[in-house]
């Protein structure tokens, strides 16, 4: 499928979701669907760096919280609407991703991972000490209950998150099929070999880190309006991080479809279990699933499907060759 067709299809699916949300009478379902879509964005964003390049980011919480708090603070200060807050939060987090990447990604990948883990602690320290957004007491965010066109405010938030999810998935897929994406996959498989073959390793890694951070930040911008009350402890919940890591790994990391499958499956499961059992049990289940999948099914659900179907290996099996082919094609 060409990129154009894929974009059209993704927009159609998004429009169908938004359309369906307008006919749902019980607002809880829209609320729950927002939660799932937010994870589609986070898991896809994580996968652009984690799955495509192989650099593990354990700081999803930090990026999301920077997006969340920058939106909350700007809303309090200038009363900006969410569609303006989203790109601002995205830019900010893209810059943080780029800076983190520039400082640590040149070293072994594991240092980047440790730095991202530590980043959440630091960002939380700053937010807790930031009185303007309430410090550790938290901050109430006012939102109108009604909004033109969409009716309820939750439906409006759902629309915004659908747009973000479509944008994230389309970006992931376009990257995956581009020379840029083949370069990333080459780095993932063998960084030294990629560098020796002329892949601009550092530049590609930094772009991937920035794109990934941008989407995480954008996903955070509508969150204060969804929650209506933000405070550091729950904003920095490890649940965001563990989910955004578990979802791509459970779904499969080499394709855009993996994080989407993972987010829909695990996200829906958690919403159901939070209602039926308790929220700590469902986090335990996510942790256990993560461990089981990385041990028993390293290529996730997509890998399982592929091995069952007995399909021949995809072009990602040899990304360097795929990239050379693509470059040859474009130069002709």
């Amino acid at each position, binding site marked *: 499928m060409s990129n154009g067709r894929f974009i059209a299809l993704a927009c159609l699916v998004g429009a169908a979701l938004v359309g369906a949300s307008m006919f749902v009478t019980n607002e809880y379902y829209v609320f729950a669907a927002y939660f799932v879509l937010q994870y589609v964005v986070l898991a896809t964003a994580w996968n652009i760096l984690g799955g495509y390049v192989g650099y593990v980011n354990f700081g999803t919480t930090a990026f999301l919280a920077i997006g969340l708090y920058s939106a909350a603070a700007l809303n309090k200060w200038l009363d900006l609407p969410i569609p303006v807050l989203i790109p601002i939060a995205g830019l900010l987090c893209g810059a943080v991703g780029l800076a983190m990447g520039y400082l640590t990604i040149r070293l072994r990948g594991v240092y980047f991972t440790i730095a991202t883990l530590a980043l959440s602690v630091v960002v939380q*320290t700053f937010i807790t000490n930031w009185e303007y957004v309430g410090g550790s007491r938290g901050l109430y965010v006012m939102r109108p209950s009604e909004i033109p066109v969409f009716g309820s405010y939750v439906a409006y938030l759902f629309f915004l998150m659908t747009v973000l999810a479509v944008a994230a998935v389309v970006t992931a897929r376009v990257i995956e099929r581009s020379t840029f994406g083949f370069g990333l996959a080459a780095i993932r498989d063998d960084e030294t070999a990629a560098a020796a073959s002329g892949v601009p390793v550092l530049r590609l890694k930094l772009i991937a880190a920035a794109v990934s951070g941008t989407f995480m930040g954008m996903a955070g911008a509508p969150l204060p309006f969804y929650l209506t009350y933000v405070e550091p402890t729950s904003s920095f919940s490890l649940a965001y991080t563990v989910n955004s890591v578990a979802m791509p790994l459970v779904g499969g990391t080499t394709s855009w479809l993996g994080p989407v499958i993972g987010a829909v499956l695990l996200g829906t499961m958690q919403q159901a279990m939070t209602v039926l059992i308790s929220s700590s049990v469902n986090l335990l289940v996510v942790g256990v699933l993560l*461990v089981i999948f990385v041990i028993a099914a390293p290529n996730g659900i997509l890998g399982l499907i592929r091995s069952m179907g007995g399909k021949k290996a995809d072009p990602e099996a040899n990304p360097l060759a795929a990239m050379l082919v693509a470059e040859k094609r474009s130069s002709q």
Partner: protein
Amino acid sequence: MGQFAGLLLDSIVSGILVGGFYAAMAVGISIAFGMLGISNIAHPALILLGSFIAYVLNSQFGLDPILIGVLATVPFYFLGTLLYSAYEFAFERRGTQLIRGLAFFFGLLFITEVGLQLIFGVDYRLVEAPYIGPSYNIGPVSLPVRMLIPFLASVLLLVGLQIFFARTFTGRAIMAVAQDKFALQLMGAAPVRVKRIAFGLSTATAAMAGAFLIILQPVEPSMGRDYIGRIFAICVLGGIGSLPGTFIAAVIVGVAESITATFYGPSWSPAIAFGFLLIALVVRPAGLFGRA
């Protein structure tokens, strides 16, 4: 002596004491990450597990927390060998270590934390021992015994490990496996077996560090993750795999945090370790005492 100097001296001394304890927390990572190349980010969660074992045995049977820590090293050693066997089977043998190995340990961290939360709730727990409470005062400097005991025990632990690594065959084999696995095989030692022992040792230190932690302060299950950045910062700063380096780096971080807490407020001190980590990674990734 002026009030400022007294305050400074007091915060430096308590920083050194806490730093010694940080060394006990970091030494396990120093072994696993520095010598074996296994990024066990679940280590802080195992330390918390050690703290809660100390809590249960102390509150049920009134055992001394340090004694519990020493006793718990045995089951923790075997837990570590088991974890390593799983890790070796699932990741090292397949050669896809980094991303999935990290996710594996992150999953373990999360499971341990949520598991402890389900059993013990989110309340702070503490232990009772005769040395928790009294404090010596030397001029402006106060020496709380509950900080002194973990400090001394940590120093003993590190000295013991250093002697083990320098003097025994197994210890030297562990140091060797970090450098050249193939050469070690030629010398007649099995790398996987050596690494299993080393990883067992690394988790065994978590049992003791956990006991020290709950002597120093009340604990709750999600505390472990606050220590991840700090512990890795210490390991990187100290030079990967160097135990004396780990100790010195731990004391530096401890003193820096203590001074920050005294003069700027304790809510700022978590950012210190991260600053050290970034500076260390950017300026000198090999650490203060690294070989590279």
